[in-house]
């Protein structure tokens, strides 16, 4: 083997001497309140989403029905929350499958790729279902009470901004993961 590569190996071993070892970190990882991995945070978020959207399948229509909204809007709202509940459940299910210890790099990348794509899909489906629903809700809110309408607009704008920012980050990560995965699969297939 080339001497340079041998020397490279030797230098890699010598890097052990300068590796920064901090024993304090280890203990933090066993306390869920002090540190939470990104995966665990996502799992928690999606569990909350499943529960809340599940509750709002019934609660949403119950809230707006007494205000005089038509039946078809209350049904639409219920269907929207039902859809979000199912999609969130699927993402959560996939997150539970993710196991970095058991999976090799290719499997882990493929799983993360699937999770990110499912997230994006649920965001898009949510937007497609929600935008016309919001327009109708705002229309009726305006007819009922202007302050209700203003509150609805503000809430909608905030939601859109948050959604767009999240989507941008998601897209960047998705592209990175897909590039890495694509490179691996390309080489496997020759």
């Amino acid at each position: 083997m080339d001497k340079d590569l041998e020397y490279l190996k030797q230098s890699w071993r010598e890097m052990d001497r300068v590796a920064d070892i901090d024993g304090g970190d280890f203990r933090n990882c066993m306390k869920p309140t002090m540190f939470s991995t990104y995966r665990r945070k996502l799992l928690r978020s999606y569990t909350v989403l499943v529960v809340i959207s599940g509750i709002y399948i019934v609660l949403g229509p119950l809230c707006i029905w007494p205000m005089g909204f038509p039946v078809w809007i209350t049904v639409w709202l219920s269907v929207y929350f039902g859809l979000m509940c199912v999609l969130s459940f699927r993402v959560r299910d996939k997150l539970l499958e993710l196991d970095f210890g058991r999976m090799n790099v290719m499997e882990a990348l493929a799983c993360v790729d699937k999770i990110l794509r499912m997230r994006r899909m649920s965001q898009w489906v949510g937007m497609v279902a929600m935008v016309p629903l919001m327009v109708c809700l705002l229309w009726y809110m305006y007819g009922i009470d202007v302050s209700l309408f203003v509150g609805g607009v503000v809430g909608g704008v905030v939601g859109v901004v948050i959604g767009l920012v999240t989507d941008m980050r998601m897209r960047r990560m998705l592209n990175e993961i897909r590039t890495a995965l694509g490179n691996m699969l390309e080489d496997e297939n020759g």
Partner: protein
Amino acid sequence: MAKRSEQQKQRYLQIVEQYSTLIYKVCYMYADDAEHLKDLRQEVLANLWQGLEGYNGNSRMSTWIYRVAINTCITFFRRHGKHSSLERIDERAASVADNSGERASQLRQMYEMIGRLGKIDKALIMLWLDEHSYDEIADVTGMSRGNVASRLYRIKQRLIAENHG
């Protein structure tokens, strides 16, 4: 998070203490800056803690740790953009080398090239530098042994060319 016995906690502490340099080196290879390095290490340590129950001993402990660490680093989603300084791996490696300035310079060039590699190739060269067999590297990455061999061959050729170029 499921409650763990004191025995499991002690086992975890022993393992991470024993392999702390391995974890550090993997994270260092993938980190852009000091903040990123800290995040990666914490993420890896947390994933090791979570996954320890599922470790059934059918692979070497170092192979299992490599798998978790590399998977974590490759898929880590950096949520904030703040940067802090971190000595580049080529500079650190050169400063560790206790040979002539020429050797240090060659070393720097090779590590610079490794720093520019894609995420998967970084994983391959790291595992090779740590004396893992092609079969073990294939097991960690999920690539075929042939693919591992050909990719590593290309990377090594590039390293040699970089060094003599």
